[in-house]
């Protein structure tokens, strides 16, 4: 579902990734652990195209979505509109000024999956951190992703909300998605992930 081979990336002469390999099967939940600067986030950002790798191969069998530590919803828009924006990649421009009815229906289904149907018309800025992160996951679902990359999805959340988000990610893996989550909490990683990959800090140049 996701295969990364020999990924290399450096920023201004500092090598962050030097031949990183990872493959994730459908239905598998992989946790990436490691100190700051070990390139965990960079791996995810290279997969979705937010960074261009210097070398190596990334193969995604389908559609990769990303969930961020800082969530990155448009706070002034409601949850439904934010989830609908996941569909932008398959909408032509002339249909994307106002989200079409079929996309809104699909987005409601995604909100139902994350348990937030009743908050569909609330502005995201008014939701709690945990609810916002679940809306962000619903946006990933609306993208029809089969790979979800989560960059420290629970670092900004309280323990209870963190558990909810982790269980949701686990359940999505159970549905057959490939899930990769960068985590800073080894105990969460051991509890929820099928496999834990530890990354070492590369020697600073």
């Amino acid at each position: 579902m996701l295969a990364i081979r020999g990924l290399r990336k450096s920023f201004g002469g500092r090598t962050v990734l030097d031949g990183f390999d990872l493959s994730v099967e459908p239905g598998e939940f992989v946790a990436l652990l490691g100190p700051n600067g070990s390139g965990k986030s960079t791996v995810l950002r290279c997969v979705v195209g937010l960074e261009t790798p210097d070398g190596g191969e990334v193969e995604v069998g389908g559609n990769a979505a990303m969930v961020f530590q800082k969530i990155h919803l448009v706070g002034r828009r409601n949850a439904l509109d934010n989830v609908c924006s996941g569909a932008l990649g398959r909408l032509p421009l002339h249909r994307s000024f106002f989200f079409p009815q079929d996309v809104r229906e699909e987005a409601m289904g995604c909100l139902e999956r994350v348990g937030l149907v009743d908050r569909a018309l609330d502005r995201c800025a008014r939701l709690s951190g945990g609810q916002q992160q679940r809306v962000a996951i619903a946006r990933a679902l609306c993208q029809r992703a089969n790979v979800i990359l989560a960059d420290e999805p629970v670092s900004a959340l309280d323990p209870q909300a963190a558990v909810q988000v982790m269980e949701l990610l686990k359940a999505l893996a159970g549905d057959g998605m490939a899930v990769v989550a960068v985590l800073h909490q080894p105990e969460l990683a051991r509890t929820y992930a099928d496999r834990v990959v530890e990354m070492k800090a590369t020697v600073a140049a």
Partner: protein
Amino acid sequence: MSVTASPKLAVPRRRWPAPVVWVVVAVFLVVHVLAWQATEFSPAALIAGWEGMADFLAESLPPDFSVLGKSLEAAVITLYIGLLGTTFSIPFALALALLASRATTSAAWAQQAARAVLSFLRSVPDVVFALIFVTAVGLGPFAGVLALVFHNTGVMGKLWAEAMDESDRGPRDAVKVTGASGPQIALHAVLPTVMPSLAGLLLYRLDVNVRSSLVLGLAGAGGIGFLINQSIKLFRFDEMVTHILVVLLLVVVVDQASGFVRKRLGA
């Protein structure tokens, strides 16, 4: 209790400003002396000529309120010039701002081109635009509206582009990951985020444009500025004071109204 350095510690010596600071100060002073001379700045002349001002004030008071109706009518025209000048520049300013902002346009050449157009429109004063358009459509409010549309497109487009530049990168990245194109990112990440700032800047520009349309009136674009100009030419300073009081009222009302709405927007 007070903290004192132990006597063994060497206190760092006070540092004098670097020589370059002295040079800058000297240049600054020389430029001001030159400016003083070139502008014939002379407090003495002001004091010696106080009688002229006193005469002027004596002639202008009490205000002649018989022209109040005419004055208010003209003030409404001035307001309308400012209003149309602002709203009709919205589509042009928005298009150019979207092209000029780093947040919405990645092609450097397009950004540069849009910025060049905005700079040009901004650097030509609205009065100059008015004089140009008067040659096409004649004296009157319409020339004033056209002048404001052109100048305001330049100013508001730049302000809007800056607001977009400063918008949070996160939602942009998040929407980009979904496979959205540049225009879709602008539509669903940038614009919803910056809308309150854009609306606030729009109201601020409306405020400025209503005041500008007054000056355009002096240049022949109609409205209350035109009446002020007329009163001065006819030495009817008492009428002029009425017009100026109406202008004061207009400016305060527009300023307060736009300030109130901007506060509600939180911009």
